[in-house]
């Protein structure tokens, strides 16, 4: 019953998104919704490792940036089709994830978090200093993945399959053995090992798709702005946003980051207009309020009776 309702909600949501550009022709609104979707993808991807496995990464901009730069540089230097560059970005991000993951996952807690920040910063500084290859701190034009006219609508449509794919994967993780193992790692690594879980392996397995979708989101994002630069697609702000969106909406949930992205992207848009520099303060306040008063994230407000139902009913059982 509940599952059926969820499927209906999902169908209506995607139908709405797909038809949205047909009647909404305001370019600014379309761009805004596009950004909501891209950051929802990033938040869900972050959730694989940050929410389910409980490893608070603040370095996901590294994968986002790898996607953006791989697409741009392969088009510029190798004269590839930009879509091929997107695929290259996806592959390189996973190679990067293997390298970064096998180093950072040796650390736990705050040390892990700091090491992910360091990894992303190293990448940013590298890109900044390779003037010949990357155009350094100035940045460069990113290729267009779609051709005019109606670019805003096309980018929005382009983000929808990406969101659908990452949500589908999240929904699978949510109920699969893999997802349970990640949650076991989050709750207690010693207990996880006592049920036969190899934490290092499972964390890497979660980081790979997380990096892949972050990179795809990064390519799409950079192409929509026709620009890549270390201060845009390798900016630590993006890492923070990915984590914020997931935690604000609800860590380790499928819909949480979607909701989180709607709220955070829209509020930051409003605040940016009215309080140019103080919007970061508002981010911080928002996060503190959510952590204090709704630790399950905004999504838990919609499932208010969930805990009680869990005790009484079928959620978490086979039927649920």
């Amino acid at each position, binding site marked *: 019953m509940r599952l059926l309702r969820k499927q209906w909600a999902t169908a209506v949501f995607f139908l709405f998104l797909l038809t949205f550009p047909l009647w909404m022709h305001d370019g600014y609104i379309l761009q805004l919704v596009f950004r909501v979707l891209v950051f929802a993808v990033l938040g869900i991807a972050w959730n694989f490792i940050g929410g389910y496995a409980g490893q608070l990464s603040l370095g996901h901009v590294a994968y986002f940036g790898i996607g953006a730069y791989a697409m741009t540089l392969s088009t510029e230097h190798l004269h590839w089709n930009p879509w091929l560059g997107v695929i290259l970005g996806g592959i390189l991000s996973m190679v990067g994830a293997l390298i970064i993951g096998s180093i950072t996952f040796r650390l736990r807690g705050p040390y892990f978090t700091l090491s992910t920040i360091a990894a992303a910063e190293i990448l940013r500084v590298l890109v900044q200093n390779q003037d010949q290859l990357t155009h350094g701190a100035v940045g460069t034009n990113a290729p267009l993945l779609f051709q005019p006219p109606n670019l805003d609508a096309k980018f929005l449509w382009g983000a929808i399959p990406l969101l659908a794919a990452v949500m589908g994967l999240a929904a699978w993780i949510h*109920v*699969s*053995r893999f997802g*349970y*193992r990640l*949650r*076991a790692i989050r*709750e*207690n690594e*010693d*207990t*996880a*090992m*006592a*049920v*036969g*879980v*190899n*934490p290092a392996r499972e964390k890497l397995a979660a980081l790979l798709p997380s990096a892949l979708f972050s990179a795809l989101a990064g390519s799409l994002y950079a192409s929509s702005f026709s620009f890549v630069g270390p201060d845009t697609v390798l900016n630590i702000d993006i890492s923070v946003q990915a984590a914020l969106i997931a935690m604000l909406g609800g860590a380790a949930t499928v819909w949480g980051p979607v909701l989180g992205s709607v709220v955070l992207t829209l509020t930051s848009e409003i605040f940016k207009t009215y309080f140019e520099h103080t919007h970061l303060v508002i981010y911080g306040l928002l996060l503190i309020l959510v952590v204090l008063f709704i630790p399950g994230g905004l999504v838990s407000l919609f499932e208010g009776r969930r*805990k009680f139902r*869990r*005790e*009484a*009913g*079928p*959620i*978490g*059982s*086979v039927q649920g």
Partner: protein
Amino acid sequence: MARILEFEKVSKRFGGLLATNEVSFHVDEGEIVFLIGPNGAGKTTVFNLITGYVKPDSGKVRFAGQDITGIEPYQATRLGIGRTFQVVQPLPSLTVRENVMLGTFLHNASRAEAAARADEVLRFMGLEARANQLASGLPLAQRKLLEVARAIGTGARLLLLDEVMAGLNPREGEEVVALIKRLPEFGITSVGGVEHIMRIVMSLASRVVVLDQGKKIAEGPPAEVVHDPKVVEAYLGSKFMAGAAR
């Protein structure tokens, strides 16, 4: 009778403390062997050395004839060594059933099969009424049972129970004793236990290994071991020894 576990001259030093000093003992197929000894004798360390949470400095650990010295904890579980923790460690945000499913997932990839197997274990442990409740809401006695249920779920052949009875009232203790005797129904042929409650040890153990300050000081059937002067001394001090001799 086949040796399921061999612990051979294993030593482990933590800084200046020799936690385990050339300790040797074994568990045969079908046996229930208890480690006893005063606090700090190194009993839990022995369990951690078997399951790989602590790596030995020297010595050998064998499971069913295979050398598992210095193995990773998850590998020990996969080979068939289940364990509980002295300080119960349920996964609080998961339900009771989901906690046990983590164990049963080891040999059942599908969620439905893992859940069905978990329900069997929960029925056996008398926890079926709590299946959909969050583990964090269980009282201590049931959290201890959940700990055992999760270990049974992994399909272990050898189960290591670290002070499962501590904190249980006598009636609950009796129930757990009855359950331990029925463990072969789940393919668990051998049990290693750490326990302080002598009444439980006496009624369950086929053999007892006594540790004191990291060394094995006695071994044998429980009725004999409790009269061993070295054991009495370790527990009560030498003053009482003189009294006992008089």
